[in-house]
């Protein structure tokens, strides 16, 4: 095997790209990388694919201001050059914000994700938060492995900060071991905080940042 070079990208996705499903987004990045002419490594086997890893899947409708993506390249390109070329090849709504070299490691990018910061915006958020402040636990139904199960989401919330009557920011657990999806949090606000269903359905959700498990978060690329 020849040497591979990892470039860690921090990217954003906004309207209209937020409506892509995760698989669609992966395909869109693959094609953008090909258009940019980047020397991406290909996986071995029956159906070779360009080698890239997203830190955390992004669900349909979710905007992000800072997700991570690792590219495996065959050449040691300047990260700024990779960022520049890719930015010129991405469809409306996607942008690469930063690019850094990352050391190839055994731990996958996905396994490094520890928490995520989200911003939620919809009318009545502050009131709903006030109503759940003392609700302990926050049990909601979640579809998991083909059936509905009850989960207590309280332990998954690290902190919540109100930014106004209709806006909040929160840090929640994220990654493969424990993960809170914002839609589940909104469901809890509906159930225990009387957030109107319409407000929940119209809530704009942006992932502000992914918190990676590392001593120096800056080394992750921001």
């Amino acid at each position, binding site marked *: 095997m020849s040497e591979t070079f990892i470039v860690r990208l921090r990217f954003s996705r906004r309207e209209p790209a937020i409506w*892509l499903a995760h698989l669609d987004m992966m395909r869109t990045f693959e*094609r953008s990388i*090909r*258009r940019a002419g980047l020397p991406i490594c290909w996986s071995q086997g029956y159906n070779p694919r360009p080698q890239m890893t997203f830190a955390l899947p992004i669900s349909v*409708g979710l905007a992000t201001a800072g997700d991570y993506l690792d590219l495996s390249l065959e050449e040691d390109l300047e990260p700024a050059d990779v960022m520049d070329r890719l930015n010129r090849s991405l469809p409306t709504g996607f942008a690469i914000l930063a690019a850094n070299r990352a050391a190839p490691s055994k731990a996958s990018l996905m396994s490094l994700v520890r928490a995520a910061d989200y911003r939620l915006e919809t009318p009545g958020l502050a009131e709903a938060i006030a109503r759940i402040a003392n609700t302990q636990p926050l049990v909601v139904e979640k579809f998991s492995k083909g059936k509905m199960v009850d989960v207590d989401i309280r332990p998954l919330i690290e902190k919540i900060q109100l930014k106004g009557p209709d806006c909040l920011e929160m840090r929640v657990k994220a990654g493969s071991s424990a993960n809170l999806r914002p839609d589940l949090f909104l469901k809890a606000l509906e159930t225990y905080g009387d957030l109107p269903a319409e407000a929940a*359905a119209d809530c704009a959700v942006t992932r502000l940042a992914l918190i990676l498990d590392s001593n120096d978060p800056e080394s992750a690329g921001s």
Partner: protein
Amino acid sequence: MSTVNLPRHLLASVEKPARYTGGEWNSIVKTVPEAAEQALRPFLRYAFCFPDTYEIGMSNLALRILYHLLNERPDVWCERVFAPWTDMADRMRRENLPLFALESRTPLHEFDLLGFTLQYELAFTSVLDMLDLGRVPLRTADRTLDDPFVMAGGPVVYNIEPMADFFDLVIIGEGEEVLSEVVDCYLHWKASGDTRTREGFLLAAAQIEGVYVPSFYTVTYKNDGTVQAILPNRTGVPATIRKRIILDLDQAYFPTQSIVPNTEIVHDRIFLELFRGCTRGCRFCQAGMIYRPVREKKPAVLVNQALEMEKTTGYDEVGMLSLSTSDYSALSELTDGLLCELTPHHTSISLPSLRLDNFSLELMEKASSTRKGGLTFAPEAGTQRLRDVINKNITEEDLLKAMELALRGGWSGAKLYFMLGLPTETIEDVEGIAHLAQAIEKLYQSLPRFERPKRLELSLSTAMFIPKPFTPFQWSPQADTETMKSHQMHLKDLLRHSRSVRYKWHEPRQSYIEGVLARGDRRLGKVIEAAFRGGARFDAWDEQFKYDLWIDCLEKAGLDPNFYARRERSRQEIFPWSHIDCGVTEDFLWSEYQQAILAQTTPECREQCSACGAQCFGGGVCYE
């Protein structure tokens, strides 16, 4: 101009929201000039409308070509509109949101021209659904100067009569040249300042060859319900409308900066159009007649287009389009060229269904070094007699030889396509389908174990034959639904011990309504509208199709579906489409029909010219 705001809860609640949000790579966004500037230099807003889902519409080559062709012009902005799936359409109605174009989210009714492409008759109600949702009056007679002009094109328009009340103008044939002429005509009309009536533009457009304005023709009927005459009701309107074609496809416009969808579509790859037309002359096939004569692109042109599109799209797969790829005269040169240029970039070639012979198997081996692509084979009929009737030039020996090659080559099976209800079909022909499948099973068993795959898997499907205009069977009655059902059951029964065969069939009632519409006349307009008002849309989708509603609407309109579908028509009958000229003459089609009844075959174009009439266009295979 206004834009439609799509609330989050709406997009979050529908299936595949990326169908509706646009922003794809290579999609085109322009700035609309200010009104003052437009007064000096008119600007045309064109909506290319496809009456089915995004995934199907984006896979359509006409859309791919004409979208970019129109957008090359600085005085036109062409955008795309697809039929929103039922979940989205229902929610949009509930929230009072009009149908919009993907690029600008401008409501449909604010466009100047709407161009629908019609690929199948069962899309008719979806056209009405889109107009209604886009707040465009359904009927041409109800449209005012504030409304767009509504156009149609595509294979179905060779008999557009059932939809004549809804389309202001219709383009017959290939659109690359004529569409631009219509656009010029519109801009000229706008610039002339004399825009007091819609008719001014329509009269000017009717002068363009290939343009048909249905409202300029009056249809009268005989007492027996057949057409008496179709006559122009204005001076200066042609008595017949001849289709337009592009003679030199190498020189014709072909976009290499093609849109790359954000969400997966049906044919999600680079398209190469190898040729138009087909030399085979299968008598059931409308495409084989209306796209005559055959015109090929040079392999070097195609390889260049593939390479350029690979760069501009990032796609990693190239597909080939034509009516019969095996008949492309430079297929070997083309695939070698593509493989040599594309393989180093991890770009693969996806081969369409090919006629099974040594050559195509070799080709498939080459094209898919790691994976075995599927094989398809379309004998269409179960006996040699019936295959001769339809002029499908395949023998049982061909099929078995090809299957042996395939099985020895490592393929474990194939898809077999047949039709039920072909003219002159008897129960022996239906049984012949089962016998063919069983002959393949026997062949498989006769091969030594180490020279054949572990298991044989045959997928056998039967579609219903539907007689279409401009084919030799346009005079022929469509088979009745009950007989078709019993034939399907009989076939299923015959195949019950054939464990390697999976049998799939098509709903005959859907084909029956398609048959009514295919050879229908203008009186069906109110039936289509009533069906739409009653909830019909996406009729080509099995789970959406409402048979009882259609029958009810036909009954209420006092129209007998059997008059359209199940009647043997006479040589003298004037068809609802008799004023349309596709080059192929009625005399040729009739003689083909007579040959068919006698089970006599006709050679393909390259072997011998049968004087079908398509020579009149002065190019293509007729002059090779």
